[in-house]
């Protein structure tokens, strides 16, 4: 790589005092790195709010019937848990944090294309989150419909659905604007010489994701607006009593929300594709296949939404087509898994926490993906749909997948972001309960689902009791791992040993600038002449 190591006296982005300082210096900064940290802090906060709700839900399932909270509260809890985790944690996900922090640097740019719009996106995000919080405490009680807001229940329930839905509507803007920003950044701001095929794989994934955010989110916005209008004025789009169609709601909802699943997972896959070459010290296996599979996932992923609706009463022909397409979309994901594993082959593997979390991602994501295929098979879906099986499945994908990839990406880029190093031991110690507890919790849910336990149930029949207890104990183990993980990272932000600019001997551009990076990232725009994972020079050194 023709970029030199920059040693510069310029202040790093954490210390820099601009027009404003102190807290305002963060809240009004348009620096992509500071915006990324704003996202990180707010999202982790929301994540723990969601975890707490999940924790209480698991406690409730410790007893089959007599409970510590009412059924209404339970319904509000799982709605809260779903909305927070999905709209405030996994949808912004790796894109908001690492897309913001890493994308411009890895492309050799000084910032995203529209820095002010970028900050505005964060304000939409926080604004939406605030409205969601207000929805909890005003009106006739917090929404109780589940995060999917299925009509006509969402139209008829007396709870504060209107405001809750409006919050999701606002959050959509954050997502769309971020998408527009990143697509433009990738088109316009790549370093000289960095053609699309010399671009690392994380930007490829961000690129595919961003297009989905731009194209799919408006459908959600329209759907949610219609729900609001229908609640306020009874226009009768979705309510059959007024001539509407509840299945239409489901189509519109999933036309967004299925691609949203890929919005959540694609950047995670991108991060894994950065981490594996670095710790194997070799080029990625099948660069083009991975890059194109991101695009294929985005494309096919937009055409499979109705596999959430096999029991809703679609035509058999429709069900057949959507089942077939669902199988097709599994292929690019499988390709990625094979390429990742092959990237370890004949590498020189430097085993560090990011690699452990990345490999855990592959394992958990495989289970998530395969259970998805089971449900894509029509005959099995008729049994498994709307049971704990689906709950287990999407936690494997969203938490085992996106969540663990988020953790992997966080420990991978942590030294770059904060200029400090965490304790490796703490990361291994945290991993153990997290991984064991995770499987105890969610694998048990898969089993519960096969046994016929429906989701979103306040009380359960006696035959499901044992498994519920196992899952609850699993949740305690997992949460203790999470606490150790975030606790020790927080400690490292302030007290960690200083990290050098390239602790992992990685070769992508973000590692060529100091840690933490200076405000402008590069004093001299780098020129790119090689493929992104060009380890040849470093190898063996």
């Amino acid at each position, binding site marked *: 790589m023709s970029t030199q190591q920059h040693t510069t006296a310029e202040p790093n982005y954490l210390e820099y005092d601009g027009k404003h300082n102190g807290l305002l210096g963060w809240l009004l900064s348009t620096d992509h790195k500071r915006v990324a940290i704003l996202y990180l802090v707010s999202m982790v906060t929301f994540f723990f709010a969601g975890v707490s709700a999940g924790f209480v839900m698991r406690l409730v399932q410790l007893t089959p019937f007599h409970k510590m909270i009412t059924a*209404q509260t339970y*319904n509000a809890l799982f709605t809260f848990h779903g909305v927070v985790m999905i709209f405030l944690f996994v949808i912004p996900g790796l894109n908001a944090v690492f897309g913001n922090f890493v994308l411009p640097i890895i492309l050799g740019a000084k910032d995203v294309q529209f820095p002010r719009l970028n900050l505005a996106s964060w304000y939409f995000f926080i604004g939406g989150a605030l409205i969601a919080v207000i929805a909890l405490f005003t009106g006739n009680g917090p929404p109780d419909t*589940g995060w999917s807001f*299925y009509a*006509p*229940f969402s139209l*008829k*329930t007396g709870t504060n659905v209107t405001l809750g839905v409006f919050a999701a509507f606002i959050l959509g803007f954050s997502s769309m604007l971020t998408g527009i920003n990143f697509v433009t950044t990738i088109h316009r701001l790549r370093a000289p010489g960095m053609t699309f095929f010399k671009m690392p794989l994380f930007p490829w994934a961000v690129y595919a994701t961003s297009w989905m955010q731009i194209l799919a989110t408006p459908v959600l916005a329209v759907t949610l607006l219609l729900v609001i209008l229908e609640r306020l004025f009874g226009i009768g789009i979705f309510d059959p*009593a007024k001539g509407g*169609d509840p299945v239409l709601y489901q189509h519109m909802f999933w036309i967004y929300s299925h691609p949203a699943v890929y919005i959540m997972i694609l950047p995670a896959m991108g991060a894994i594709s950065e981490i594996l070459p670095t710790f194997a*010290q*070799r*080029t990625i296996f*099948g660069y*083009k*296949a991975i890059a194109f599979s991101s695009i294929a996932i985005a494309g096919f992923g937009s055409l499979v939404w109705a596999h959430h609706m096999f*029991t*809703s*009463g679609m035509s*058999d022909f429709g069900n*057949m087509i959507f089942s*077939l397409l669902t199988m*097709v979309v*599994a*292929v690019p994901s*499988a*390709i990625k*898994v*094979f390429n990742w594993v*092959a990237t*370890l*082959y*004949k*590498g*020189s*593997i*430097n085993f560090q926490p990011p690699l452990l979390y990345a490999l855990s991602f592959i*394992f958990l994501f*495989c*289970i998530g993906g395969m259970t998805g*295929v*089971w449900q*894509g*098979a*029509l*005959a*099995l*879906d*008729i*049994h498994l*749909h709307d049971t704990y099986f689906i709950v287990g499945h999407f936690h494997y994908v969203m938490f085992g997948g996106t969540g663990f990839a988020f953790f992997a990406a966080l420990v991978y880029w942590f030294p770059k972001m904060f200029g400090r190093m965490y304790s490796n031991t703490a990361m291994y110690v945290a991993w153990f309960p997290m991984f064991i507890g995770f499987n105890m919790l969610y694998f048990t849910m898969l089993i519960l689902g096969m*046994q*016929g336990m*429906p*989701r979103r149930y*306040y009380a359960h*029949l006696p035959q499901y009791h044992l498994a519920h207890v196992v899952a609850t104990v699993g949740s305690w183990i997992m949460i203790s791992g999470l606490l150790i993980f975030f606790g020790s990272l927080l400690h490292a932000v302030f007290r960690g040993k200083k990290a050098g600019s390239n602790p992992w001997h990685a070769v992508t551009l973000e590692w060529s600038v100091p840690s933490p990076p200076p405000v402008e990232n590069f004093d001299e725009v780098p020129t790119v002449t090689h493929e992104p994972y060009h380890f*040849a020079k470093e*190898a*063996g050194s």
Partner: protein
Amino acid sequence: MNFLPKASTFATQADKLFLQIFVLSLVFLVFITALMIYFVIKYSKKRHPKAEQIEGHTLLEITWTVVPLLLFVAIFYYGWTSYDYARRAPRDAMVVKVTGRQWTWSFKYPNGKQTDKLYAVLDRPMKLDVNSVDILHGFYIPAFRLKADAVPGRTNTIWFQPTRLGTYDIQCTVICGVNHSSMLSHVEVVREKEFKAWYFGPEGAPEPTAVAALAPPEHAGEPEALALMRPRGCLGCHSIDGKPMVGPTFRGLYGKQEEVVTKTGLARVTMDDERLRLAILEPSREVVRGYPEQMPVVPIGDDELNRVVAYIKELK
């Protein structure tokens, strides 16, 4: 699956498919995991200090694109054919109308008999026309591996042929409000003889029971009005013992003074025969203050309505 009874022809098919896909997935998972662990150990920095830069291998990559594609399409195919089976009811299947409402199921047989438990005959096909009168519900019989959403304004059909006598759970799978998890019922698989004795018997003939469920019927000997209200779901929202539930209790309702919200504002009314009737026939016209506007319009005959009103009147 031993931990869940398998009690229909479709369940046998579905479980077979399940087992095949399960084994396939397990092989894949074990293979990928073992390979990862093996590589990490074999090519660790210590053992393998210099990495080889391998950019790809066309043949290998084509293989791992085409083979999964074929496998997935095969899974699709078998999933589809079994599903197709579950959708095409034989001509001689008895058709039962299943109606979901917050928070009960009711079943109506071709001759007009109506129950809140489903009775099915061993080894005889039965087709269900599933429907809802208020919001979405999910009609699910785990032991049969079958499910259909109950959607207001449309009819979704499934069919099954029970292969084992017994009582099996019916659960609601689509969130439908506060009592979602108690929207339960049972399907009772009985012998043809017992079924016919009940089905063709006079009104009030004892309902058939499967060998497994010899317990006396839960609601034997209750007042007629209650038997009328139970399948209509009234008792899911209203109590008869004075406790408010989703709606006000029926106890002491007659003659009570209360505030109601009407289109034009608040009004004070006394509950008399006429108001009771109105409250049941047109629930949204006057909504009792402090309660949600959630009472559904439930079809009820004139005569039946009279009996319900008379019953509430007596409930002091």
